[in-house]
């Protein structure tokens, strides 16, 4: 088993963990976004609450979600450790530094990641934690056929949050950080896995840009729409 430890603690192994966990998060976001679009269904929250109930009670999804929490933490802790190691591996810096090809995003992955992490804490604390561990979110059984099941009215909590301007702004900052993180991260993850080829790398880069604009934009529309509604 020594080989697997060696692998996980090698420089390339550490980066492969970053890449795989990052790609897992990348595959999760569109699913999350599609679910969230039901906040804009205009049905007083029935579709969204049904979806939220399904997501918190389906065993398969519950299992996947624990994987998700673990991967976010692993990605975040590993990312910070990599950033610290890389800083010390450079040592002192130049008086004049150019660092060609270095984009703002690629040089600030850890900073952007910390912003995303702070955002996630606020986000999970406000909705997920309150829904799972407190009774602050009321039960709703006025939907036909939902009597006695115990569906929580998360919609009302979300609507209340997004009626406050500062929360909307916090969300927009978080999403902006996510967009920049992914502008570099998306294609970087493929290069880390060793996937770089003239045939498909331009496609990955293009997809990466599209993803890092469209997904955060999709998420951003929801709080803005709910704020102005």
């Amino acid at each position, binding site marked *: 088993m020594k*080989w697997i430890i*060696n*692998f996980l603690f*090698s*420089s*390339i*192994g*550490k*980066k*492969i963990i970053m890449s795989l966990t990052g790609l897992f998060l990348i595959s999760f976001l569109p699913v999350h976004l599609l679910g969230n679009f039901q906040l804009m269904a205009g049905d007083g929250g029935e579709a969204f609450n049904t979806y939220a109930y399904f997501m918190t009670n389906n065993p398969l999804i519950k299992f996947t979600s624990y994987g998700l929490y673990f991967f976010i933490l692993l990605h975040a802790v590993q990312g910070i450790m*990599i950033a610290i*190691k*890389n*800083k*010390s*591996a*450079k*040592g*002192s*810096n*130049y*008086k*004049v*530094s*150019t*660092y*060609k*090809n*270095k*984009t703002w995003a*690629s*040089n600030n*992955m850890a900073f952007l990641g910390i912003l995303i992490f702070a955002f996630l804490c606020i986000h999970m604390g406000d909705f997920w934690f309150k829904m799972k561990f407190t009774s602050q979110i009321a039960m709703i059984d006025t939907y036909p056929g939902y009597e006695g099941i115990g569906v929580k009215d998360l919609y009302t909590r979300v609507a209340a949050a997004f009626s406050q301007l500062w929360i909307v702004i916090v969300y927009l900052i978080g999403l902006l950080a996510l967009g920049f993180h992914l502008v*570099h991260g998306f*294609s*970087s993850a493929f*290069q*880390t*896995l*060793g*996937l*770089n*080829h003239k045939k498909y790398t331009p496609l990955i880069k293009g997809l990466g840009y599209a993803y890092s604009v469209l997904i955060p934009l999709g998420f951003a529309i929801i709080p803005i729409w709910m704020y102005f509604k």
Partner: protein
Amino acid sequence: MKLNLKIWRQKNSNDKGHYEAHSVEATGDMSFLEMMDVLNEQLINDKKEPVAFEHDCREGICGSCNMVINGQPHGPQSGTTTCQLHMRHFKDGDDIVIEPARAAAFPVIKDLVVDRSSFDDIIQAGGYISVNTGQAPDGNSIPIEKDMAMQAFDAATCIGCGACVAACPNGSAMLFTSAKVAHLGLLPQGKVEHTRRVQSMVATMDKEGFGMCSNIGACEAECPKGISIENIAMLNRSYIASVFGGQK
């Protein structure tokens, strides 16, 4: 032309180091190193300590002359080593800041000279073919696909100058190591030991204290031999295969 130099001076690895200003008269057909020679003659005439810098072939093939010129390893001309950089790329009155390559794994020995023995250690860990492959074989006696040969040859042009490490904000040696792994691993003679080579060169690279690759690409932009980060992807692939592949 008159140039205003600001040069890093450091007595030894324990010295903190500082920048020193000098001005020098150069002509356009001098190489950058010849301009440094003029400066050193001047310093010697003034009974001052000349600036230590590394050089050997002065024809762009040995890789010893890397220094960071206005923030760029080997200076502003792309695909060119410091010794092949000519002063005609500068203008009269230019300010030029000259610094050593900076990375924790490349400690400064003196002025612009850094200790690159960490590169030697990486090479010693696997940058060779163990068996004597004899005289140059007859052409075409070992079949090698043309594209493969070209790719290996491109990687083999790496001169081990360390500009990639100097250019990298993480002080990573991935471009150098990947060039060596690609150069040897793509050819039939080197393929035999590919798996072991990848494992031990990466382990040594880590041990020497180089940083990890953030896929920024500063290295390939500054490499005087145009080594591409496609080689780094190949190294990553080979590393994954070496861990999960056949050998125990």
